[in-house]
């Protein structure tokens, strides 16, 4: 017995048809006009780079490459916590170029054999840009926060990125520790005690964590917490999107983070090698560095370029990871031994 279609069946059929048409639309388009020759370069970057890459670097490089070769470069990209993307690449994500928040993640790629080209041979030892760590506070700075020491006060609620996945969070921990020491004097036992004390005080005030620095800023901008520890670049971005609602506090003593560019050789076929190298060179060239400065980073190649962005604060006494004995030593001591093994495990936290 064959029944006539009900009204509902008709509606369902029409909706399904519309859906299929929507799905097939790009396929129909593709056959109509031949696309110009297209190249693909997969880029993974740590979260806060998203804006600078998507709106600055990618379009600028594509334009340049097209002028030179006539080819379109297409950049599939993913931006997340530095640790997250490193883990994804280690598990097989197809990134050709990785921009990481610190050298520790680059070393993990190297140890796994994914990255063979030594980034330290790039300009500025592979540091593609830098940024000091700052504290974002609410309009008018109602709690009067001026330094990392002020974050230990009992009435402060801090939003912090998660050090397990975010490279920025690891830098923040280094800043929170090192600003209480007498660096660049050599670290003494007393320095370590004072640094740990301040770190412990700050972490007893953390009320919210996010997997990436970008996510932490979103939490803060949505009204959570009184203070956010983050990259100065994020402060500049927050000022331009939120205006007066947030204020950037550049503590007199803070760390200058260094972000590295790595070629993931394992994922670069021979035919894309030149493209990947050209892209790497572009990042360190004057044009690339100017774009980073425009988006709120500081140039590691030529600090003179920083004057191009008036919203970058004046650095008085920045601490570098070099003064802490290099990334590996600093990370092992401050993040792993003090933060992870001592502070994180304390009861009541």
């Amino acid at each position, binding site marked *: 017995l064959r029944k006539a279609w009900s009204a509902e069946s008709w509606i369902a059929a029409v909706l399904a048809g519309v859906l299929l048409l929507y799905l097939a639309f790009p396929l129909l388009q593709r056959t109509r006009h031949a696309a110009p020759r297209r190249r693909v370069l997969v880029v993974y970057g740590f979260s806060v780079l998203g804006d600078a890459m998507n709106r600055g670097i990618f379009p600028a490089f594509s334009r340049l490459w097209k002028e030179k070769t006539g080819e379109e470069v297409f950049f599939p990209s993913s931006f997340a916590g530095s640790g997250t993307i490193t883990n994804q690449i280690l598990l097989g*994500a197809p990134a050709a170029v990785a921009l990481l928040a610190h050298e520790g993640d680059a070393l993990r790629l190297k140890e796994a054999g994914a990255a063979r080209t030594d980034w330290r041979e790039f300009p500025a030892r592979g540091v593609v840009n830098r940024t000091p760590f700052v504290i974002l506070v609410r309009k008018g700075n109602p709690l009067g926060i001026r330094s990392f020491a002020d974050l230990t006060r009992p009435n402060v609620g801090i939003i912090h990125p998660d050090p397990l996945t975010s490279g920025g969070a690891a830098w923040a921990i280094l800043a929170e520790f090192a600003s209480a020491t007498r660096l660049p004097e050599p670290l003494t036992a007393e320095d370590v005690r004072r640094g740990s004390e301040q770190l412990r005080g700050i972490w007893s005030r953390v009320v919210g964590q996010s997997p990436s620095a*970008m996510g932490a800023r979103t939490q803060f901008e949505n009204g959570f917490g009184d203070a956010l520890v983050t990259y100065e670049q994020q402060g500049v971005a927050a000022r331009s999107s939120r205006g007066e609602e947030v204020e950037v506090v550049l503590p007199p003593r803070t760390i200058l983070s260094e972000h590295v560019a790595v070629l993931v050789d394992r994922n670069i076929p021979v035919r894309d090698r030149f493209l990947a190298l050209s892209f790497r060179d572009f990042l360190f060239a004057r044009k690339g560095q100017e774009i980073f400065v425009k988006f709120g980073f500081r140039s590691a190649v030529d600090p003179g370029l920083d004057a191009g962005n008036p919203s970058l604060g004046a650095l008085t006494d920045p601490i570098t990871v070099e003064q802490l004995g290099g990334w590996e030593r600093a990370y092992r001591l401050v993040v792993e031994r003090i933060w992870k093994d001592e502070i994180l495990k304390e009861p009541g936290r």
Partner: protein
Amino acid sequence: MTPARQDSGRGGWSQRLTVTALWAVLTPLLLLPIVAIFVFAGRGGWTAFWRTIALPDAQFAMRLSLWIALWTSLANAVLGTFTAYVLSKHRFRGRGPLSVLVNLPVAIPTVVIGTSLLLLWGPIGLLGRFLDPMGFRPMFAPLGIFLAHLLVTFPYMLGAVKPVLDELEVTYEEAAYTMGAGKMRTFLYVILPALRGGLFSGTLLTFAHSLGEFGATVMVSGNLRMKTQTAPLFIFAQFEAGQIETANAVAAVLAVLSFVIFMFLLRFTGPSAREGS
């Protein structure tokens, strides 16, 4: 189902109070969150909404999600029906454990499913270790998303089809056999038509679940814009990046789509199609 109580005036008054209380509780819990999505999505007006929806990466994410949902539904329609048929019509050793196994994905957290797939197909995984050198890398690719969704949504098709098969009178099949129809013909002309309702609702359920799947997808997809980023991942990434309007525009589209699917589900599995309570 208990019929509405038709009590005295006092009963009516207390009933009204109870219903009001229920609304008062459910409005902030269930209704307002959905309203919030639409309010934020529509904040910049229609033009802003359309501009956001028309972004190439938003379009790509929605298309990818729909494609994956389509393939997942089709694959599970076949695989789920086959499984249901075997489990329902055959008695064999290991049938008990198998019935539990096929329903297991509902009980396992989706993040765990994603992890398990990475540990099976990834470059360091049980199978991936051998497949990776051959160039077969399903993880961080659309195929990986498809595999994850297949696993996550498997029980839905089964749950929709198997009860119908279980209840199907054996006499119809036997009648078909005695009239000389083969197994295949019996399946096509006797069993399949009876399954239509179950198949339809199973497919819709699978489609809806696949469309919104997040936990397993975020583990296996690599979250590559314009390549492996599905609509829910797009929403999450945009929200993380502070692009709340963009996130909400796509969220609103997904919500409407799910709503439409749900309406059809209600119609086709409504009182007439439903057995028992």
